């Protein structure tokens, strides 16, 4: 950078090197039609996925569109709140707004009957005992706290079933 020349009144004055400019913008987030439908069912403790009419894949949560075919996912499929861990990560770093005690496990969970794993927490088991193929079930927040949000599922925990063999979820790892 070229040297700048200052007027006399700025010579020898401690320069400003940075400014603080906090900025906050408020938005109204819209979930959209498919997500709203899904979340309204979540509030009733039901997981209702949507199915693509072309490829027949079942998406939970649905976003209204088959990502590979680009058509509306119109069919509805109710799923149980159990699934299989396809892969996971042990988090050892505290994140903003994150009240979790570390370490904790974030896992990709393939809900039974769905075709795309969701990311959620695994609890009630030491982090180092989580393995791929582990069968898990949702633990919901108390009934009076349940609402139309995925936060209604507090976490997943092992459901005691034997680990699923790799062949059953091979397509997803």
């Amino acid at each position: 950078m070229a040297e700048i020349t200052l007027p006399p009144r700025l010579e020898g004055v401690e320069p400003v090197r940075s400014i603080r400019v906090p900025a906050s913008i408020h938005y109204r987030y819209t979930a959209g039609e498919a997500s709203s439908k899904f979340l309204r069912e979540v509030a009733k403790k039901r997981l209702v996925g949507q199915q693509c009419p072309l490829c027949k894949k079942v998406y939970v949560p649905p976003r209204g569109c088959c990502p590979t075919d680009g058509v509306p996912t119109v069919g509805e499929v109710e799923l149980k709140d159990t699934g299989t861990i396809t892969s996971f990560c042990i988090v050892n770093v505290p994140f903003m707004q994150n009240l979790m005690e570390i370490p904790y496990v974030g896992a990709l969970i393939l809900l039974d009957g769905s075709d795309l794993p969701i990311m959620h927490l695994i609890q009630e088991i030491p982090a180092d005992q989580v393995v791929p193929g582990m069968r898990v079930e949702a633990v919901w927040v108390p009934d009076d706290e349940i609402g139309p949000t995925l936060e209604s599922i507090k976490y997943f925990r092992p459901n005691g079933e034997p680990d699923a063999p790799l062949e059953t979820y091979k397509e997803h790892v």
Partner: protein
Amino acid sequence: MRDIAIVSFAQSHHARAISTHNEVEMLMPLLGEAMGAAGITKDRVDFVCSGSSDYLAGQPFSFVMTLDAFGPWPPISESHVDMDGAWAVYEAWVKMQSGHADIALVYAYGKSSPGDIRRVLSRQLDPYYLQPLWPDSVALAALQARAGLDAGTFTAEQMAEVAARSRRAAVDNPFAQLAGDVEAATLLDAPDFLAPLKMHDCAPVSDGAAVLILAAEDIARELSDRPAWIRGIDHRIEPHALGLRDLTTSASTRLAGEKAGVHHGEVDLAELHAPFTHQELILSEALGLGDGVSINPSGGALGANPVMAAGLVRMGEAATRISRGDANRAVAHATSGPCLQQNLVCVLEGE
């Protein structure tokens, strides 16, 4: 240069708030409609390019999820600009000129309803001198309008006439949001909104999306009975600081118009992306559009202004009129930034 044409166009019914649908849901039917009208399926598209801004709805990477609406599988050749979709057309046109694509699909979308668009657009400004003051988009346009009024470049009556003409034109446009048979004199009686601007001088706040398909040479003739050929396309930018520009004119539009060849023939109609009445007057002057030119027969951005898609809509509206045979030579324009800082001009012709 290869001959490249707009062969299909679809747009949403723009509205103050399309709150029942998220961006994917808003766009998906339009993609089907545009491809259907051209008689193609997605496997024939060689290149996809989109325009949107994360800031509008407050979602980083919103364009990432919105791509799902196209169903990009098997993997596709695709790109995205954080600019109005008109610039996505430019990128696609360049890609086609380089020989990498014969059919390109361009889409753009913008939802202004989730945030306060006037405050959101202030985030486009110089982050040191301007952003901390939160000057909003209407205020900056008002400064420009006063400069023009003071200089005698245009009058408040002419501005109201633009508003009235746009609303009357929008009556015939099923996609427009603000339409009606109204007299300029009536509009002038309204109180000031942000003086010297009155409410009628400002585009409505809109949610909306648009899709446009480009094809080269014989493929264009296959996909459309009367393709709208891109005879010239160019865009130019000006200094950012308002104090460094003559706000009463648009030097960048003038230059882009010259480079795009606006004057190489008679212009039948122009679709100008002017979110404020006085900006239409500035743009018309910069492009040298005479009295015989039909300006914004769609109602323009004053009829609906889905930010990030409004420029693309201008191209689509102009192309549609050529394809219908209403016009043979049209100018489409898009703008970006405060007080017309950046402008794109495209010249379209029938066979």
